[in-house]
């Protein structure tokens, strides 16, 4: 314990660039994460527009095929590791200490390190596009033997993944320690807001899954440069082994991308339905069940690779089991809204859109879980449509919901509701214009990751590209809304919304630099 004088000194907000470089404050680090995530979202989005421009018409017109493949690969890596994962860690940094009534994250210096690894790592990834031979072009899954044949860009990607993985593991350790060790007196586990619950489980997934990816890319590196034969049948290894190790990481990874999103909309829906969350404890157990199942379903990404029948059957049934806890969640969100006094501010619109459109992606996922059916869908645009419905409509729309929901708490000003609604409708409509036709393209047999296509796919691709460009440029509205809210606007009250639940609404808006220096009492 120190004196009041020391406390006063500590409450001053540091000035200048070193505030951001050297900060140990969870709100500053959260802000850094969120801005980094948004910048990466625009970078990855620009790459998506290169892809959609090339696919606007059949034939090759904008980029050469090798560069197209690099765009496909780096777009995915940037969006997954640069935009979505850091975005949710940004939310965690800002909100978790306030939600559990803690003064900061458990390990503030390590928190700074987790963030500042990111810009350096993504510099390596972006640099790979400019080295001889170009960036990685084997898809974000970097399957050998294609990834073993690539040039220096693949090595840059491997080390990018190493450093990003370190960042994720350190961030996850910090989050678990914060949630398990820093809760205010009375904040028992089963009183924690659902966003906190989803993050503690996500952090566990991160710590369990990211090192496995590190191992996989290390084997790739030694196969490339040091003569090992992990993925070469001539040496007794197997390229398919990479796929197994990769997806042992990769499937928990997709839940890492979605569980915090479930957490956010579980905060937003009760507020705007003006009813407590329906089935709180079933939500917690469903989240845990999804996390457990995520470790025993990985090979459903590999049905067509030539597995034994027993493997295909096991992974088919285990995958279909996931529909049960996910269904519980969707049911609970609907039941929370049922007969609520609902209003439809932007966060609520986004939350409802998440529930509806994520469910579309979830149901196409069930279709692909059926092994014989997947033989038709595998590596077609049906898959592309599916995972954009779950990652964009699940993760990204939920993040938008969270941004609009907590922005007044962060900046102290209400956002522009009209602009928010314009952003919402443009995003949701143009998303569906972009990706809904891709279901049909996939059914008709259009393969993914190919820059050219047969003439019968032309109309749907043109529609999809038009939607893609509207979707991309609509995101600048979000940038405008955020800047506008930072610079001014209607003062936000401490509660912001109509009697929302949670400790974050008991502190003023904007939240002071340090909150809960004295732990709040939780009843």
């Amino acid at each position, binding site marked *: 314990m120190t004196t009041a004088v020391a406390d006063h000194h500590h409450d001053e907000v540091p000035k200048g660039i070193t505030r951001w470089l050297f900060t140990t404050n969870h709100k500053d680090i959260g802000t850094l994460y969120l801005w980094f995530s948004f910048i990466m979202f625009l970078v990855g989005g620009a790459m998506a527009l290169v892809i959609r421009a090339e696919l606007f018409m059949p034939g090759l017109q904008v980029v050469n095929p090798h560069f197209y493949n690099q765009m496909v690969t780096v777009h995915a890596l940037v969006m997954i590791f640069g935009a979505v994962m850091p975005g949710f860690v940004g939310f965690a940094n800002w909100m978790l200490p306030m939600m559990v009534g803690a003064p900061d994250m458990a390990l503030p210096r390590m928190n700074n390190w987790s963030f500042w690894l990111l810009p350096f790592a993504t510099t390596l990834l972006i640099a790979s596009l400019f080295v001889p031979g170009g960036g990685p072009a084997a898809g974000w899954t970097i399957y050998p033997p294609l990834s073993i044949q690539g040039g220096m860009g693949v090595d840059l990607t491997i080390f990018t993944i190493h450093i990003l993985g370190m960042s994720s593991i350190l961030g996850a350790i910090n989050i678990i320690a914060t949630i398990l060790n820093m809760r205010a007196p009375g904040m028992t586990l089963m009183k924690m807001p659902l966003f906190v619950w989803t993050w503690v489980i996500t952090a566990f997934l991160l710590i369990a899954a990211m090192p496995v990816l590190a191992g996989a890319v290390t*084997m790739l590196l030694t196969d490339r440069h040091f003569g090992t034969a992990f993925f070469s049948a001539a040496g007794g*290894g*197997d390229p398919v082994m990479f796929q197994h190790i990769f997806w042992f990481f990769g499937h928990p990874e997709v839940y890492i991308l979605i569980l915090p999103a479930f957490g956010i909309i579980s905060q937003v829906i009760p507020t705007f339905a003006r009813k407590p969350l329906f089935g709180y404890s079933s939500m917690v157990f469903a989240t845990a069940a999804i996390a457990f199942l995520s470790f025993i379903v990985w090979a459903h990404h590999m049905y067509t690779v030539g597995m034994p029948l027993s493997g295909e059957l096991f992974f088919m049934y285990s995958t279909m089991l996931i529909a049960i806890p996910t269904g519980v969640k969707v049911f609970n969100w609907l039941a929370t809204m049922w007969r609520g006094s609902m209003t439809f501010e932007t966060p609520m619109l986004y939350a409802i859109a998440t529930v509806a459109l994520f469910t579309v992606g979830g149901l196409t996922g069930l279709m692909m879980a059926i092994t014989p059916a997947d033989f038709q869908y595998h590596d077609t645009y049906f898959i592309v449509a599916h995972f954009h419905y779950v990652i964009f409509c699940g993760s990204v729309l939920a993040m938008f919901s969270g941004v609009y929901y907590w922005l007044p708490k962060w900046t102290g000003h209400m956002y522009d509701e009209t602009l928010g609604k314009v952003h919402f409708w443009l995003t949701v409509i143009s998303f569906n214009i972009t990706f809904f036709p891709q279901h049909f393209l996939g059914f008709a047999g259009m393969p993914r990751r190919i820059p050219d296509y047969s003439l019968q796919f032309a109309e749907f691709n043109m529609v999809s590209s038009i939607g893609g460009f509207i979707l991309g440029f609509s995101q600048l509205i979000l940038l405008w809304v955020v800047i506008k809210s930072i610079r001014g606007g209607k003062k936000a009250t401490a509660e912001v919304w109509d009697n929302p639940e949670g400790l974050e609404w008991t502190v003023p808006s904007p939240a002071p630099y340090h909150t809960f220096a004295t732990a709040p009492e939780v009843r």
Partner: protein
Amino acid sequence: MSAAHGGYYLPDPTKWPTITSMGLFLLALGFILNLHYLAPGPWLMIAGAGVIVLMMFAWFGQVATESEAGKYDAQVDTSFRMGMGWFIFSEIMFFGAFFGALFYARVLSVPWIAGDEFLWPGFEATWPTAGPAGATYIGPDSHDVAAGTFSSIGAFGIPLINTLLLLASSVTVTIAHWALKKNQRGALCFWLFITVALGAAFMYFQVYEYIEAYSHLGLTLGSGVYGATFFMLTGFHGFHVTVGAIILAVILVRCLKGHFKPDEHFGFEGAAWYWHFVDTVWVGLFIFVYIL
């Protein structure tokens, strides 16, 4: 200066994490340039490694100083414990990837390759194997192998000695811990020193074994999937033993300086946890890589 908020220690802004990230960036970039024989590679690696070593002295030194100054309360101690525990869990998962590769190759991929009579005629599934296009395996410990063949390291020579060394070191570090709890400083330093010495002996034998493998047994990283799994598993383990021994040596220096109290010594315990972890991994290696 820093302030305690509600009793929890919140550090002041710090420059070391950013500098560390820069060091790591230089190290990675230098390594990649080295792989492609590009000029500034070694220099970048040296610069990056230098930054990281500097950081360790400065950042970890700061934490040790703060700890001795009594700035950390029981709650901070718990945060450190959770951090270390989950870090070790992440390390276990990292080794899990390589153990997974070993099991997959032995149980699935090698028999599958042998089962395909058209792709690799005449190849039979054995273990160890360097695969259908690799060198032929001629049994353990046969020195001076002919070209095109390789041998492996038998379990009950050096690997058994190494097992006993590491198991003994786990006992000695526990004895040192008991001594610390009873405030017997002399015994603490003595048994900790023995632990570090046992770790160093382990590394000596491991290096000796590698030299044997490369110079007499024909067993290299390029010896197919056996050589790959053997060297990657034992190599990463050996790296972890080295790191663990360095950590214990630093803790020994701190013990000699009079750091740690009988009831407050997480720095010591964290190092001991890590040491037990590398020990446990070795037992897995001894069973699955050497014996079976």
